[in-house]
C-alpha cells in the first residue's frame, strides 16, 4: 500500500468507530456507534462492505467469536485496526489538518 493512500469519508468513520470500540467492535456495535455519534442512518451492509474494503487494504483484521443464542447460534465477527490502518488514519488526519489550516471560514462555521 502506498504511503499516499488516504481513507475515504466512510472508511475514515468506520475505522474511528473500530478504534473507539476496541475489543467490542463487531457489525452491530460499529453500526450503532456510527449512528449514535454522527446521527447518520447506516445499514449493516454498508458497514460490512466498507470493512471488506479496509480488510483488503490490510487496514483491518477480523476473527470469529463464539456463537450466541440471541443470534440464533451465529457467531460475531470481531474487527480490529492494524498498524497499517492506524498509519492510514494518521495520514488522513494530517492531510485534512494541512488542508484546513488557516481557513477562517471553517473555524467560523464551527
Amino acid at each position, binding site marked *: 500500500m502506498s504511503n499516499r493512500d488516504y481513507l475515504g469519508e466512510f472508511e475514515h468513520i468506520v475505522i474511528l468507530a473500530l478504534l473507539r470500540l476496541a475489543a467490542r467492535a463487531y*457489525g452491530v456495535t460499529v453500526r450503532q456507534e456510527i449512528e449514535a455519534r454522527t446521527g447518520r442512518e447506516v445499514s449493516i451492509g454498508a458497514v460490512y462492505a466498507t470493512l471488506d474494503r479496509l480488510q483488503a487494504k490490510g487496514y483491518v483484521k477480523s476473527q*470469529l467469536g463464539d456463537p450466541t443464542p*440471541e443470534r440464533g447460534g451465529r457467531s*460475531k465477527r470481531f474487527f480490529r485496526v492494524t498498524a497499517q490502518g492506524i498509519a492510514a488514519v494518521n495520514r488522513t488526519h494530517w492531510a485534512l489538518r494541512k488542508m484546513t489550516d488557516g481557513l477562517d471560514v471553517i473555524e467560523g462555521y464551527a
Partner: protein
Amino acid sequence: MTHQSGAHPPRIAAWLVDLFTSNEHAESIAGDLLEEFSAVESKSGVESARRWYWRQSAKTIGFLVSTGFRIAPWSTVGAVMGGCVLLWFGSSLPERAIVGFLDLRRHHVMPQHSRLDIYVFWLNTSILIGRLLFGLLIGWAVAIVAKEREMVATMTLGFLYGPLNTLVLLALIGGRLWAEYGWRMVPHLMVLAFGFPFMIVVGGAIVRATRVAMLRRSLDLCG
C-alpha cells in the same frame, strides 16, 4: 431463525440477504440482523422490528450487490461473458428440439394437415416454456462458475440480455414480424424481455441457496 421471545424476522428478507452475502460474512451478517431485530422488537414491538428488518435488508442487499461487482470484477465479468457465449450458441437449441419433437409426433401420430391449430398452439407454448427452462439452465451454469457472486453475475446477465435482446429483435425484424403475427408476438416478447432474464436470476438463486444450505450444514457439523 428465532430468539428468546419467539418472534421471527421476515423469512423472505432473511433468505434474500443470504443469497447476496459472501460465505465469509454469511453467518455474521445474519446474526447481526437477528440480534438487532430482537433489540428493536423488545423496544418497539414486532411490527416495528419487521419493518426495520426489511429496510435494513433492502439497504444491505443494495450495498452487497454494488460491492460484489467491485471486489471481484473480473471473475464476475468472466462468468457473465461465459453466459453470453452459451446464449449465443445455444439460444436456438430449445426451439429446434421442440420443433423436431412436435414434427415427429405430427407425422407419426396425427394425419397430415389435421388439427393444425392444436399443433401451432403446442408449438408456441412449448417454445415459450423451452425458452424459460433454457434461461434457468443458463442461470444455473453461470452461478456454478461465479462462486459467491452468483446473484450479481446472473442479475448482470439478465439485465444485459433481456432488454438488449428485445430491443435488437424489435429494431431488426420487429416491423416485419409484427406485420405477419401482430399481437400474437406479445407473449414471446414478454418472455424474452422479462421471463427469460427472471429465470436466469432464479437459476442463480437456486445455486446460491443450495450453497448457503451446504455452508450452514457444514458449520452446524463443525460447531
